[in-house]
């Protein structure tokens, strides 16, 4: 492949071993899961990580529209 020949040597190994991605709808959940499994724990000595959930604006908008319809 001509493009591969243009890649700088230090980037070749990862390219050659990278699994071919697929975005076929039926396998997307599996791809997402596989990507998550590759996560490594992170050192939190100096930095804290907090998980926060906010109500999404678009959900609120849809809820308002729904309430208006009800009224």
């Amino acid at each position: 492949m001509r493009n591969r020949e243009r890649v700088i040597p230090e980037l070749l190994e990862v390219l050659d071993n990278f699994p071919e991605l697929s975005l076929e709808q039926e396998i997307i959940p599996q791809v997402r899961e596989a990507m998550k499994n590759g996560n490594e724990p992170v050192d939190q000595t100096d930095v804290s990580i907090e998980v926060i959930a906010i109500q999404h604006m678009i959900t609120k908008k849809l809820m308002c529209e729904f309430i208006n319809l009800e009224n």
Partner: protein
Amino acid sequence: MRVYKPRKLNGDLPGLLWIHGGGYVLGAAESDDALCVRYVKDIGCIVVSVDYRLAPEHSYPTPLEDCYSALCWMVNNAELLSIDINKIAVAGNSAGGGLTAALTLLARDRKFPKVHVQLPLYPMIDDSNNTPSANEITEGMIWNQQLNDLGWKLYLGKLYGSDNIPPYAAPARATDYSNLPYTYTFIGQLDPFRDETLTYVTKLAQAGVDVEFHLYPGAYHAFESLNPHSSVAQYAMNEYINAIKIGFDRISGSLKEAKETTA
């Protein structure tokens, strides 16, 4: 959302909203923990990383509106988060770069929040998928024209292929790039997004936006993320992290100048 803060805080810090990549279909905020921790340490900022909803379950505009909600939440809760609202940056890679470019357009047009620095890194912004670089990278190479077409199809949903695609969905379609924040971006020369990025930075420059750009020969899509120990990746990462610092320093300079003028 995930919020990354230094355990020892002395006053307010700049705020950085990070948007992960994944073709609008894949990826999770959690996967970028190490990267966001590095931003906190190297830049000296508070990072908010948004876990936006993904296509195809949630097509446009949901992912973008989620990012907008996160940006508003970050600014509205700045005091609680110890964020200086005069120093707000938005950054992301690939689809996250596309969402970054879209979000700064949206925030500009909605007149809130004010974004001071943006880093749409190798951004996915052109749904035409028909540039010379997209036509050049048609297979393999991590991300290519074929995958790109699927990504856009899933992200745009019913809009895909129509003429009514708003610039907030595909920022390459914007006609007004004025009044956007100081921008830094980079891309590998073997990335299908090369030409849309070149066009984007050209249009920003022509619109009077301060923009910095780096093209890496011999590098493919997301090379810095996939090869973090390579010298080219370290160079690219150091450079863009430094660009965020420079972006914040520029604001400090402007604020200082404004204070001196009014004194």
